[in-house]
């Protein structure tokens, strides 16, 4: 009896689990619907939006916030939040930029990554070992790092000339569309993190910790270690973001990217990840980052004044999550 029940249950599964059905039932259907809607609207209302050039521009414009948002997703999945990711990236970028002026660019990149790891580790230790609220810990780190970047550079910007550091802004042209290595890196990071979250034990544990931390601890998950690993992984992602940023704006600027943090959280939330942890994923975030860029780009293409653009962005962001919400409610009913 056991075996037949068993077999029946699994068979039933496969019966219903057609790929289309699985897709529509998935987390990303909502954000994707919002993205497509936005693309269609701008495609119809402007003539330049759907140009190959413009589309590749949108991808390029998304990479920095998009990469930051990948790390942010990991942290938000554990019911945390990282207010410092922009600052960590900027500090890493200026360290890389300054070291590269009088040294080896590769070495500078390594040191920049170490900076991210130390800062992510600091956040992680304070949050996991001392159970302090992520909001405050990362706010504190933000404040320290913003000042640290200024102190380190004496408020100077460093222009970047090394090819290695700006390589992510180059890339092949495929069928008239130029794709930068930065965009490819962003896609690759999304894929790797998506794999890690959905196909490995580590991923299951990240979700479990964010979903119900107490239960995760009772089932014998090393909650602290998982949390620390998440902050460290995010730190590595931030190092990539710093590299992306040096490619996009070839200057290590201590006061740049000050809205990147809020933008990264926005991308995560628009991408359907819950701020309460345990639900969501990086593919949604990828789409969320694209939505944010599409709105800015599309409104510019539509020739809307910058102030009204801000008004429109506010309204459209709310509409985007409303679409997501609508799709999601439909599918669970």
């Amino acid at each position: 009896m056991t075996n037949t029940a068993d077999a029946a249950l699994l068979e039933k599964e496969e019966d219903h689990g057609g790929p289309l059905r699985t897709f529509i039932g998935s987390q990303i259907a909502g954000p994707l619907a919002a993205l497509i809607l936005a693309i269609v609207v701008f495609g119809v209302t402007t003539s330049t939006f759907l140009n190959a050039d413009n589309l590749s521009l949108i991808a390029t414009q998304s990479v920095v916030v998009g990469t930051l948002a990948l790390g942010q997703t990991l942290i938000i999945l554990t019911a945390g939040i990282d207010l410092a990711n922009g600052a960590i990236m900027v500090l890493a970028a200026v360290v890389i930029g300054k070291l590269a002026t009088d040294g080896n660019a590769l070495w500078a990149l390594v040191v920049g990554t170490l900076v991210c790891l130390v800062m992510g580790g600091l956040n992680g230790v304070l949050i996991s070992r001392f159970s302090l609220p992520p909001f405050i810990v990362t706010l504190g780190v933000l404040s320290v790092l913003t000042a640290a970047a200024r102190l380190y550079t004496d408020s100077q910007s460093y222009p970047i000339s090394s090819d290695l550091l700006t390589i992510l802004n180059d890339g092949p042209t495929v069928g008239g569309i130029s794709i930068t290595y930065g965009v490819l890196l962003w896609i690759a990071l999304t894929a790797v993190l998506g794999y890690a979250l959905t196909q490995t034990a580590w991923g299951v544990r990240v979700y479990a910790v964010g979903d119900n931390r107490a239960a995760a601890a009772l089932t014998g998950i090393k909650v602290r270690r998982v949390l620390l690993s998440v902050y460290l992984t995010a730190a590595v992602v931030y190092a990539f973001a710093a590299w992306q940023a040096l490619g996009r704006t070839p200057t290590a600027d201590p006061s740049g990217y000050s809205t990147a943090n809020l933008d990264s959280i926005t991308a995560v939330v628009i991408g359907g990840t819950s701020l309460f942890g345990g639900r969501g994923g990086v593919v949604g975030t990828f789409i969320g980052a694209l939505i944010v860029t599409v709105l800015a780009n599309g409104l510019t293409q539509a020739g809307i004044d910058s102030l009204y653009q801000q008004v429109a962005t506010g309204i459209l962001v709310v509409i985007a999550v409303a679409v997501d919400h609508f799709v999601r409610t439909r599918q669970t009913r």
Partner: protein
Amino acid sequence: SSDDDAGSGSGSSDVTIGIVELNLSNPFFGTLEKATEAAATAKGWKVMKSEAKVPGDSATQVTAIENMIARKVKAIVLDPANPTALVDVVKKARDKGILVVTVNATVTPVDAADATFATDNTAAGKLIGQWAKASAPPSPRIALLDFDLSDGPAGGRHNGFLEGFGITDKDPQIAGEALTKGTVETGQSAMENLLSAHPDINLVYTINEPVAHGAYTALKNKGLQGKATMVSVDGACSGVQDVKDGIIGATAMQFPSKMGELAVAAAAEYIANGTKPKPGLTDSGTVLITDKPVAGLTSQTSEWGLQNCWGEK
């Protein structure tokens, strides 16, 4: 939405230029942007505008310039949020034959753009520094109310002031320094805290006039109005009014409208016959406004200032 292809003809009706500003929540930028836009529309051009979200937000400006290149504008008037961050994208635009002139601030190297029309902020700071030195009480106790010093103009003014006053950052005459956000309210809080620690402050350098105004409220709340001399930079009408009212001792006036008009004139020249403007910084001028002139420094009165100021009177 059908106006996009400004490519071929050079008839003025299908010329579009881009204006990329800093965040406009300060009337200075509004004045600059409006003057630029007015001059452009007077020529029958269309304008595309964008602005950085917060000070230092070069990423948004890079994106904006890319979008403008995609829209095939003829010229871009840029108020750069960062001296070096925009160099590459500016080059990209210029490679496509777009004229890029910067206003208010420069890029580094300065010839990365076709031309620059800006206040020489170091000179402006120096002017008020010299005035302060000449009018300062015998034992000055100085408060510096700054703005993020990685911002080009802010750094220039700060250094200029110290140079004009003849001191360095470490001078004991400096009682204290605080960072503001260039707004009234942050100026007030910073001044309040400095006054609590150093009630003997008698000379206040402020990054701009809103900060000066806030600092004045702080002094007034403590009954210390008139006990400290204030210097500032900007020349907005409200600031000049403060000079007239004796709140601010002296301010260095800038001319944002002139920057915009010069920039548009350069663009017109380029669009009409391909002539590029003279490269490098063209100073749009600075005038010291004070009702207590000092020997050896040219200055104008607040009366003059009110006639030449910008923003709402």
